[in-house]
């Protein structure tokens, strides 16, 4: 197998706050054009790690290279080649989606057609709506659209599907896979293991600021089974979510 090309390389990353160490010396690589998942409980240090790579937060020590640029020296170059979706970020008040797109194109210094960007995330009908008036799924799709403005090499999605209904989640998965298929590397965090299993090429489990496992979802599951693990209950060929989707339909719904 070819040695994959690492686009992000994190070595011995440490982040200390006053009296507490959020990230204690983690190392990992993200390969070009994969979907990489950071999994773990709240407060494990996922978001902190992400924000340090995004150059939004200072690290205490360690080395991070993003597409050949060091976060210490070339933060502004890194910002130009990444797209960032923050957990719970807001957008400029009183502006509609097209106007927000224009603002971000100015901030990134690129010329884009706002409507084309909105079409990419299927929000063209909401062009004149305010961000606040969007549903949860629409908000997330809009956030993802803003990350694509500068045609980034890597996008970071922090819990993109939290709080969405099953249809909206599946929509978003399709969107994320599309983005990856267009050549963009995707790094995301999530609490949903089914999502990670469906979406991610590789996942890292983060616990108390350390990586405790890192592999493809398949390998990790196989390892567990080989260690003699058995589910208490025989798994059926469908689960309740399949029932939900089957009953309520899979297509895009106006309100998600």
């Amino acid at each position: 197998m070819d040695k994959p090309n690492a686009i992000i390389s994190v070595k011995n990353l440490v982040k200390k706050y006053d009296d507490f160490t959020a990230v204690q010396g983690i190392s990992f690589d993200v390969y070009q054009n994969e979907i990489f998942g950071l999994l773990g409980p709240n407060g494990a240090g996922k978001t902190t790690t992400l924000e340090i790579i995004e150059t939004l937060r200072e690290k205490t020590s360690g080395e991070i290279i993003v597409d050949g640029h060091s976060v210490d020296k070339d933060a502004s170059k890194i910002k130009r080649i990444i797209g960032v979706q923050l957990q719970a970020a807001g957008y400029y008040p009183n502006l509609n989606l097209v106007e927000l797109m224009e603002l971000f194109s100015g901030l990134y210094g690129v010329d884009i057609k706002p409507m084309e960007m909105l079409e990419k995330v299927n929000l063209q009908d909401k062009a004149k709506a305010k961000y606040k008036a969007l549903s949860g799924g629409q908000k997330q799709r809009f956030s993802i659209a803003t990350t694509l403005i500068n045609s980034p090499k890597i996008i970071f999605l922090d819990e993109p599907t939290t709080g969405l209904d099953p249809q909206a989640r599946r929509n978003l998965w399709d969107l994320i896979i599309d983005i990856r298929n267009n050549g963009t590397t995707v790094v995301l965090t999530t609490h949903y293991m089914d999502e990670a299993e469906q979406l991610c090429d590789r996942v890292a489990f983060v616990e108390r600021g350390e990586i405790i496992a890192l592999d493809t979802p398949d390998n990790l599951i196989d390892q567990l089974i080989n260690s003699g693990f058995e589910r208490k209950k025989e798994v059926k060929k469908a689960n309740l979510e399949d029932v939900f989707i089957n009953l309520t339909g899979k297509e895009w719904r106006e309100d998600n």
Partner: protein
Amino acid sequence: MSKPYNNTKATLALAKASFRSIMRSPSAVVFTLAFPLVFILVFGFLGGGGVKVDLAIAPGSDLQNPIIKALEEISVVHIIKDKDAADIKTGLEKGHIDALIDVQKNPSGKPAYLADIKYTSASIDKGNILKSVVHNLMYTLNTKDVMPTVAQLNESTVQGRIYRTIDFILPGQLGFSLLSTGVFGTAFVFFSLRQTLVIKRFFATPVRKSSIVFGEGIARIGFALLGAVFIILLGHFFFHFTLINGAVTVLNMLLLSIIGLIVFMGFGFVVSGIAKSESTIPPISNIITLPQFLLSGTFFSIDAFPSWLQPISRALPLTYLNDAMRKVAFEGAGLWDVKHQILIMVIWGIGIYAVAVKVFKWE
């Protein structure tokens, strides 16, 4: 990606976004336009009349006589007819009516009329004005056909510029509008952008912090100048606000507005930095704006304040903005003539931005 990043473009994109946002924000429009306009309208319609003495005519008084006729022609005197005795009595007691006159034909012939005037202790000032008006009138009436024996008095008035209430009120309101836009607007915007993580999202783009500050500043100045032009033109065309040198005066006023606004925005940055929550912004902002509203000669000349208060008034930046505005608008002073006022505003600006740099928070 090889194209160099354009900071100006980012700044302008922010300015445009912010301007759009401000134009759609009801509170900004209310503070910058509606609030000052209400005061200008009120004072515009009140003003110009000067002092009025309300003089009631007693029921049963003779009306066809030279005294009443002459009084009716005096602009200071406002004649009230058709009130019954009871109304007049309570009016006098409360000071709504300043005096009562009763003129009767003299049955004994000479002098032809007898005029009784009753003043009220509820309105001594206006009573005194009326007293001198009436004395003057009586003298003129009684000496109509008599040659003066000692000296003849010739009076005339120099034709000067009319200083209307609006000439005082409008610059004060303009200054206050700039103060509230600068302080409240800036404080709320930066606080809420920080709180809703809008700024954090901006930081994930290559934009510089200075672009964010300048973009916001440009938008706010643009908006405030629109407001200023609107206020000045409305005052000029509807209430005869004096603009000595026409467009040049307007331009000078706008330049002063920019200087004032930049200083006031400094206060806004400080407030957004020290406010712990959205609800603490209004009280902190009011601590800054209200004293200036009251003490900086917005409504009354600060010369009218007690002497212990005047040094405080003379320490506030709005005092100097108001002062400079009035000099420019009414006296036709150039910016160089008000350099003293500008200098004091600049000193305030340096001081407040030094504090702002210390307390302002991005996250």
